[in-house]
């Protein structure tokens, strides 16, 4: 029999950045707040300490901070007419687990989306005409604009102490920053990073081609910083262990370094770890959530947790899965194109150019940081004229120096034997003399790409796995080819002995790591038949359920998603606190 816990007012399913932001924004409310995290508690001390945290084998190769696929994974396929198979080893993307979620192991590259990204379909129809957007794409407007979100972006930047040089402050264009960016209401809280050597070479080449290079906005801090919550962060030591690692230096923004110290003191907040939520409990008419049911990892017991408001704040597709498992909304069917949950699953269209230098060019990339990069924004989104081109979208082009860690970083030119003395010699020859340019491309939605429940495979608790059906739209492959060409032009001016373009090709494969920017499935918008949640992240079908994170994105932009995830969390927090609590119920009428 399920044990029933005392009721709370609001419960969070999954406790990373978004849950922590909203719970903190409700600090002065009379609400009893409960965070449920299925993983373990963890903190900078003792869990992220050196030298153990620099165990590349445990953390990077064996994915020490990631979800355990033996307990739960996703099944994947490219097309609806294929049978999906479980991803038994993480590859293409690395969902985090435990307290703080992916906010612990991210790189810290902190962007805002462009104003046009939030009105993607309208923008393109206005600029290029109605027939311009390729037929295959099911891109949409978000239902919220950049101007509406701007204050929330600014709050997130202040929270995490983003380091950068603003290129557009209230319309004033400032050289040295991203001049293509939508206006910010204020400059970054902290100064930009210093370029690495590779970044400096990249910047020079990009400038010669008429681009305006700038330092990637970074949540690896460039100086000590006390955020508006009164939590102090420390400067980054450029140790090269960000992505896939926790930061021992208090220098990478995470829930642990920005919010959790205050939440621990917050009187109306309780955190329960080891609580694996299996469903949102609904009333029989499926119009209202009564709370959630979870398994207590310590005892194996099923626990009923009544709550007035349920916030799904777990990893992107896990939110979608929980909605489908609980009967919130209608599952999307790509054959009929009906259903509002599971739509518009998107990813990121990554490509790169590798640069092999002579052995007197020492790149020293072991001195790196997750967000240490120099980039150009000329070919991102709709920053360039697409008239005459056969695609929409773009990519930012950047040169990152993230650490060149010894086990996983061993670039060798094509034609090198895969093992043996020649491989070893080539590895030694090229280790410190090989760099890369990354193209971080938009991912547009199309009808067949979606998330639903797998008919065959189940998790350790007997529940169906999420099934991801995804391949790159033709549009995105054309975009990637075009932008990779632009990146190659920059690379040709960077003085390498040999360059090698690695454009993105179909089909999408789960094997090589690309990025953990999984988006969509519980998308926001204005149409209750075709979107899962309204512009506030509130479920159209069950108005006391809210969803956070990149699951809300109708399609993914050319930038890393965390800045927008953080902004949307503040946006939803404002809506709950200032509107929903005063008049509980649907905030947008169907």
């Amino acid at each position, binding site marked *: 029999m399920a044990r029933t816990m005392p009721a709370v007012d609001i419960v969070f399913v999954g406790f990373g950045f978004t849950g922590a932001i909203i719970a903190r924004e409700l600090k002065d409310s009379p609400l009893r707040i409960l965070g449920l995290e299925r993983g373990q508690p963890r903190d*900078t*001390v003792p869990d992220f300490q050196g*030298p153990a945290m620099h165990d590349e084998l445990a953390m990077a190769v064996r994915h020490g901070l990631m979800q355990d696929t033996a307990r739960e994974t996703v099944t994947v396929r490219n097309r609806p007419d294929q049978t999906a198979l479980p991803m038994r080893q993480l590859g293409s993307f690395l969902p985090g687990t435990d307290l703080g979620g992916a906010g612990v192991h991210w790189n810290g590259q902190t962007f805002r989306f462009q104003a046009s990204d939030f009105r993607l379909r309208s923008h393109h129809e206005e600029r290029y005409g109605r027939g311009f957007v390729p037929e295959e794409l099911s891109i949409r407007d978000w239902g919220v604009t950049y101007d509406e979100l701007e204050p929330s972006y600014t709050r997130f930047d202040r929270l995490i102490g983003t380091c950068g040089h603003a290129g557009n402050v209230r319309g004033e264009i400032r050289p040295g920053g991203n001049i293509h960016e939508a206006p910010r209401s204020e400059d970054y809280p902290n100064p930009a990073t210093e370029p690495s050597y590779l970044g400096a070479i990249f910047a020079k080449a990009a400038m010669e081609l008429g681009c305006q290079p700038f330092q990637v906005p970074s949540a690896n801090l460039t100086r*000590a910083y006390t955020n508006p919550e009164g939590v*102090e962060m420390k400067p980054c*030591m450029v*140790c090269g262990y960000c992505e896939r690692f926790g930061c*021992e230096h208090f220098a990478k923004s995470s829930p642990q370094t920005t919010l959790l110290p205050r939440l621990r003191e917050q009187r109306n907040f309780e955190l329960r770890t080891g609580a694996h939520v299996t469903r949102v409990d609904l009333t029989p008419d499926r119009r209202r959530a009564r709370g959630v049911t979870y398994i207590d990892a310590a005892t194996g017991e099923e626990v009923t947790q009544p709550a007035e408001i349920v916030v799904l704040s777990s990893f992107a597709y896990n939110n979608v899965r929980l909605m489908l498992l609980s009967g919130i909304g209608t599952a999307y069917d790509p054959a009929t194109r009906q259903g509002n949950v599971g739509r518009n699953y998107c990813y990121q269209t990554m490509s790169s150019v590798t640069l092999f230098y002579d052995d007197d060019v020492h790149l*020293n990339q072991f001195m790196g940081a997750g967000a240490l990069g120099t980039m150009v924004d000329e070919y991102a989104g709709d920053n360039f004229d697409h008239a005459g081109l056969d695609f929409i979208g773009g990519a930012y082009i950047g040169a990152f120096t993230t650490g060149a860690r010894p086990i996983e970083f061993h670039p060798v030119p094509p034609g090198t034997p895969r093992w043996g003395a020649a491989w070893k010699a080539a590895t030694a020859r090229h280790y410190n003399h090989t760099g890369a340019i990354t193209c971080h491309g938009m991912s547009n939605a199309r009808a067949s790409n979606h998330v639903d429940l797998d008919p065959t495979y189940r998790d350790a608790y007997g529940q169906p796995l999420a099934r991801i059906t995804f391949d790159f739209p033709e549009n995105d492959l054309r975009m990637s080819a075009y932008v990779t060409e632009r990146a190659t032009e920059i690379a040709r001016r960077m003085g390498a002995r040999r360059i090698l373009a690695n454009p993105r090709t179909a089909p999408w494969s789960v094997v090589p790591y690309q990025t953990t920017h999984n988006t969509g499935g519980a998308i926001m918008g204005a149409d209750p038949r075709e979107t899962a949640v309204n512009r506030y992240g509130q479920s159209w079908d069950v108005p006391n359920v809210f969803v956070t994170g990149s699951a809300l994105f109708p399609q993914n932009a050319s930038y890393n998603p965390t800045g927008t995830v953080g902004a949307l969390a503040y946006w939803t927090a404002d809506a709950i606190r200032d509107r929903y609590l005063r008049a509980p119920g649907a905030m947008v009428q169907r």
Partner: protein
Amino acid sequence: MRAALLLAGLLLTWPALAQDAARGRAIVENGTENAAPCASCHGMDGRANRSEQFPRLDGQSAHYLLKQLEDYASGSRPNEVMTPIAQGLTARQRQDVAAWFAAQDFAAGPEPTGEEARRGRAIYELGIAERGVQACINCHGPGGLGLGPLIPRIVGQWSDYAEAQLHAFREGTRRNDAGGAMRAIAPRLTEADVDALTAWLERDLPSERQHGPRQRR
């Protein structure tokens, strides 16, 4: 951007260290027209003297040593003894001297024991979470061996010198730490913390391996 290119270029072009060290030896031993011999305080082997507040330099990262000499010379690490000496050396000579000391064998005595040493080691390896002090090990590496090229080895350092540096970071008289990391940490350490930490890091050498005559504090 241009400054970064120049800095990166500097790091790229470290010439053959052995030749530098050989030239450095002459400067360390005899000084130059404008600079006193380094050996008179630091010893030929860089092990200095426990009692004099002079740091051990033996086997220290060459890049770190060079940066300190550059910072002394430019005034970004002002010091009444070292600033005129560093200014008296040419850029080339500073490089040679750094190479000489970096090439010396480092030796350390046994790890101290006792209550204070345990406290020092705990600060080194775990930090002091309640006061927001990061563990030293995160930057200075396992056993205090440093993390080249720019984070110095601190194990074995004479405690009088180490203590003086923590005080200087705390008071802001030493300001050449990357990102202000040490200036943020040092004010959070009590005098007892500083004593425990520097005593644990100091590794008393057997007397025959010390540079100068052994003196008890």
